[in-house]
């Protein structure tokens, strides 16, 4: 019984530790993005906010949503949404960013 309890406490600790590390990284990145927003770096300021959002969402997708342990079919389903959003952004911005005059 005590060996069972010890095993249970062991995986419980690992479970919390593993997820708390991801959570701490997410909060750290949140604070970083807030501070970077106040530093005047031109276009880099905007890019840093979005880049940090991409890193944060990747952490959630990979660890909290367990894509790291998912089957290939699930990963493809997740990727499908991102690919089509990518196409939508690429085609629209290819137009908007190459216009010579204002609308």
């Amino acid at each position, binding site marked *: 019984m005590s060996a069972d309890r010890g095993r*249970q406490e062991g995986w419980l600790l690992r*479970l919390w530790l593993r997820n708390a590390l991801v959570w701490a990284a997410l909060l750290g990145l949140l604070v970083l993005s807030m501070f970077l927003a106040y530093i005047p770096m031109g276009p880099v300021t905007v890019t840093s906010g979005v880049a940090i959002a991409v890193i944060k969402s990747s952490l959630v*997708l990979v660890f*909290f949503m367990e894509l790291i342990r998912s089957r290939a079919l699930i990963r493809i389903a997740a990727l499908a*949404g991102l690919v089509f*959003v990518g196409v939508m952004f690429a085609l629209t911005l290819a137009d908007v960013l190459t216009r010579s005059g204002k609308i």
Partner: protein
Amino acid sequence: MSDATALLREPWQRLERQRQAGKFGIWIFLASETLFFGALLLTYAVCRIEHPDAFAAAGRETNIWFGTINTAILLTSSLTMAVASQAAAQKGRVRQLVLACLGATAALGVAFMIVKGFEYKEDIEKHLVPGTGFALSQPSAQLFYGLYWLVTGVHAIHLTIGIALVVRLVLLGAARRIRLRGSPELEVTALYWHLVDVVWIFLYPLIYLPGRAS
């Protein structure tokens, strides 16, 4: 009654098949949600490219503290949800832990909505609703706030649905009407919750951070 018998639903003959189908189904739904929110964010991006100064001025008017606190609340709710979901997949005695983590997740979701309510109240008092009497002089700042109300409103609706789904699991689990250990319903609810969090992760820099450095 074994776990598999207790959790098995029509038309599935095996729990593992049911679990895989549920997971695949929710990921297809989440991919469609990604496109839905993607279209809104793309609209924002195009408007911001066309009106960078007005978007900077409008972004400065948002309350960064409400936004940052709410982001931290949602990130923490994702932690408790991840622990609930991963603990439920274990074989040990996890019922109390799963129930506590689900309860904390729902409570954090409600806390987010309360903070958002205070923020909306402040926005209304500062006349940041597009239309007559809008606070900012740049006409294009109204585009920012039009999108702000739309996107945060749609996100709040998603979160409310998430809270309802989590509370349902807590109530059914506490009454022992469903088995939480190994439950595909819990797994699917968790994935939905995390996506609502991911959407907010992108909204945070787009709503609260523009114009801070200028």
